[in-house]
């Protein structure tokens, strides 16, 4: 009963039917998404195969430096995706964002893998890497959304921020609502996911565990931990990144550095 049914190469290629349907829709309705869908499909194929082989190697090796190196590469990749989405030239946000992500994601993965799941050793790749991957993937989107919102609101509302500065506000007071809006906009998808989980959708990890034969009552425990972990790590990382980056939007005289658009 617990035996997982393997997907043969032929059946795997059959899954490309879904991509062909998406391509056909794009052509029929002139959506202009053909190139993106093709690249996305190829990248999914290549990246996951690569990840599969890497994980097979890592899970078998039980090597701490290698596990940490893979974790660091995942964070670097996430940072480069954020950099591609957030087109900001005036404020140096990349280094503080990267360092915050590295530290908080590591702490989260350590807490879940080493303390809640209580794996031995704490960096057991089977737990540490997937946990880190989920945290990074979820929080990466939140940070990108929050950064985009922070920069765009700071520009759009520059006159109001300056009005408050001119009335004696410090930079925190003057940009309080901009900061709040940025953090909440990044947090909302994670919170919505908590509302819908189990009712609207079965999360990927839980589905994966059930498909691989895990008792659903065990799978839900993992999923609850994961949902809480995602919300907590997203909140902490977004808040720290926004606090640091917001400070960088102001100069030495607490003047707004971003020009209006």
């Amino acid at each position, binding site marked *: 009963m617990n035996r997982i049914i393997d997907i043969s190469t032929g059946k795997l290629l059959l899954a490309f039917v879904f991509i062909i349907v998406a391509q056909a829709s794009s052509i029929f309705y002139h959506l202009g998404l053909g190139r993106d869908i093709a690249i996305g499909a190829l990248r999914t194929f290549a990246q996951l195969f690569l990840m599969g082989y890497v994980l097979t190697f890592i899970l078998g090796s039980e090597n701490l430096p290698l596990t940490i190196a893979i974790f660091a590469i995942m964070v670097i990749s996430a940072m480069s995706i954020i950099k591609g989405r957030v087109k900001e030239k005036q404020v140096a946000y990349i280094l503080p964002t990267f360092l915050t992500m590295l530290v908080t994601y590591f702490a989260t993965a350590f807490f879940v893998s080493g303390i809640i799941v209580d794996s031995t050793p704490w960096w057991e790749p089977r737990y540490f890497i997937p946990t880190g991957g989920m945290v990074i993937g979820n929080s990466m989107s939140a940070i990108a959304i929050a950064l985009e919102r922070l920069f765009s609101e700071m520009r759009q509302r520059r*006159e*109001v921020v300056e009005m408050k500065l001119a009335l*004696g506000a410090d930079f925190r007071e003057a940009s309080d609502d901009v900061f709040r809006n940025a953090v909440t906009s990044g947090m909302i998808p994670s919170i919505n996911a908590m509302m819908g989980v189990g009712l609207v959708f079965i999360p990927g990890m839980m589905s994966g565990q059930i498909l691989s034969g895990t008792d659903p009552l065990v799978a839900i425990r993992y999923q609850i931990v994961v949902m809480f972990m995602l919300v907590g790590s997203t909140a902490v990382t977004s808040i720290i990144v926004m606090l640091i980056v917001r400070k960088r939007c102001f*100069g030495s*005289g607490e003047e707004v550095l971003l020009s209006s658009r």
Partner: protein
Amino acid sequence: MNQSLLEIRNLAFTYPGASLPVFERLDLAVRSGEFILIKGPSGTGKSTLLRLICRLNQPQDGTVLFRGRDITVIPPAALRSSISYVAQLPQMIDAPVGENLLLPFSFRANSKKRAPQPETLYRMLDEFYLGGITLEQSALKLSAGQKQRLAIMRSILQEPEMMLLDEPTSALDPESAAMVFSIMERLNRTEKMTIMTVTHSDYRPETLRGIVYRLENRTLQLREE
């Protein structure tokens, strides 16, 4: 000899990416209670000068002293609590008039100042030709002229030592502009408020001794009128 309230020495400013400086080697001394009017065509840096004084922009060179202290050693919020700047297009938050007027008192730099009571606010609204307005109505729905007078009143409420008014009448009809001029002159005459305002209009204070400067050739020239 009276010490200047504000002293500018050798100020230079160039916008990022611009080839020519807005001004260089600019000097100015302002004594307490003076009414300084800075004129000059658009684009000569009049607004920039006011923004440099309250540190909303940073100069490349030169010094600004407020009460003899370099403004870069004064915490920015404390400086702006003492030197109040009103922008050319007054900004209001999406809240009632009363909340907008009391906004400065929600900031730590003004925490030792006492927020005025509603009776005081209504009396001042009258003095600022805003008699029909209630503290409960939305500030965003006021006209440009009303917002400008409300912005000046809000600045005064925090009891600054000096006010910087950036083209306060540029967006106003002649009647509203006359009201704003009248308010500025009254503040200077009765409250002894030090005022520096920039304009490219022909206005000059008639009822008091205003000092008129012209900003040209990247520096300030005293103009006899």
